[in-house]
């Protein structure tokens, strides 16, 4: 979790080992429109301490899926302009299926579980909290 601008190249550079033949990467970027409305920016609010722990848990789960691959995942908080990176995930693994699968797993879990909320700001000066996902509480975690 960071309030600094995310550099995708730097996130990519954090993965890769001599035995890894594949690197998969995903970045989320603030779009200039959503459902037909012109967007001027996005404000990310997070429950920082919990988000940090939850992101670490998601990464650990993904590492298991990636056969011990190396993983870097960063999520931005604060006010972002259109085109800025909100989340960046890099995974290196021996083979491509594992790398893609782990990167995809992390972004899907982030969207399901990470305690982060976003308020979209529109060019007409209106703003709205975006509809999100209600986290599912698993029995063994309660």
């Amino acid at each position, binding site marked *: 979790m960071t309030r600094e601008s995310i550099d995708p190249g730097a996130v990519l550079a954090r993965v890769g080992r001599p035995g890894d033949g594949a690197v998969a990467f995903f970045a*989320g970027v603030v779009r200039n429109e959503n459902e037909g409305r012109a967007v001027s920016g996005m404000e*990310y*609010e*997070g*429950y920082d*301490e*919990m*988000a940090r*722990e*939850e992101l670490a848990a998601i990464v650990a789960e993904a590492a298991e899926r990636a056969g011990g691959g190396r993983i870097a995942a960063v*999520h931005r908080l604060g006010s972002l302009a259109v085109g800025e990176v*909100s*989340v960046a995930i890099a995974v290196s693994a021996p083979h491509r299926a594992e790398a893609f699968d782990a990167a995809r797993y992390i*972004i899907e879990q*982030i*969207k*399901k*579980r*990470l*305690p*982060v*909320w*976003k*308020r979209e700001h529109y060019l007409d000066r209106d703003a709205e*909290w*975006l*509809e*999100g*996902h*209600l*986290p599912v*509480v*698993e*029995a063994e*975690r*309660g």
Partner: protein
Amino acid sequence: MAVRADRDRPVDITVLLFAAHRELAGGRADTVVTLPERATVDVLLAELRARGGEWASLPSRAAVAVNRRYASGDTVLYEGDEVALIPPVAGG
């Protein structure tokens, strides 16, 4: 018996609020709820809902984290627990 006396004391739980919930509370990032000893997350949610107005809509749209982990409704709350209402998340 000091132990017995402690067990009957109500606990003050500070609830952290985020995003739309924070705005429900007039922009405040937390609110204190006084609960009976050994109250559960469900009891806490009922207390908040009992405040009426916009609060009444809370429980059906909120998950709860206790000490930074998602917790089910029957989780018992203790003094000092960090309880957070988690509105539907929208990261990424």
